[in-house]
């Protein structure tokens, strides 16, 4: 399945090859601040992500463990990569709507979620990272 996506202004555009991981929602404090709400992300292996346009892409080292990618021109919240470098997360809001991705399978870091919303769907719920499905 090929996914395509972009930021609001077009200064970052990407395509993926391979099978994207199921969508995981992360409610950690970092994701809440960078999103303004919480994050939902799929992921691929780094070599399966092609940056068709990357002139706007800026990486911010949010912790020793990871960097967050956003568009420095329009502020769109786009990518997350762990220092280990084995996967790269793609935020679902950036992905073009011509592909219907399956529903969120897991919620992680619910211990840090905002008080203003409830998580009441059928997906797995984890207070921290999931056993198998981290935001990797």
């Amino acid at each position: 399945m090929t996914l395509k996506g972009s930021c609001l202004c077009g200064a970052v555009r990407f395509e993926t090859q391979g099978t994207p991981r199921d969508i995981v929602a992360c409610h950690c404090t970092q994701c809440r601040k960078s999103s303004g709400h919480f994050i939902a992300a799929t992921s691929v292996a780094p070599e399966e992500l092609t940056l068709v346009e990357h002139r706007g892409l800026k990486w911010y080292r949010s912790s020793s463990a990871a960097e967050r990618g956003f568009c420095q021109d329009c502020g769109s919240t786009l990518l997350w990569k762990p220092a280990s470098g084995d996967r790269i997360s793609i935020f679902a809001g950036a992905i073009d709507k011509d592909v219907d991705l399956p529903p969120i399978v897991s919620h992680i870091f619910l211990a840090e979620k905002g008080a203003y919303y409830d998580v009441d769907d059928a997906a797995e719920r984890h207070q921290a990272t999931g056993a198998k499905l981290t935001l990797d």
Partner: protein
Amino acid sequence: MYRCYCTLCQKQSGTASNAATLVRQEAFEWLHEAESITIWKMDSGFNSHFCSTCGCPTPNPIGDGLMWVPMGLLDSVDTPTAVHLFETYRPAWDCSSSQDCLSKGVENVEALYNALANHESVEQ
């Protein structure tokens, strides 16, 4: 607070919707001067204000004397979702909250503020 599911807000937030609230400007105060905010504007009036260093969305003026504040920046505020905007654009993968909101649309920013302030039901 309200959520907007339009595709602009999806890209800005990276998820299915934004989540934000509005406060009167006189009720808002910067505790640390915002010195590195990038502003991106569309002709339609949609705009994105964000920290140039880390990309987080930042509060910004909207409408007549209001401030837009992203919920994700706030520390443990418990307020219901009063308004959903552009819910027809809600992506199929988002099933994360089925909680009912009180109204489904508003005519303008002032009406949105009133809906959030009063939790009134307004017609789309």
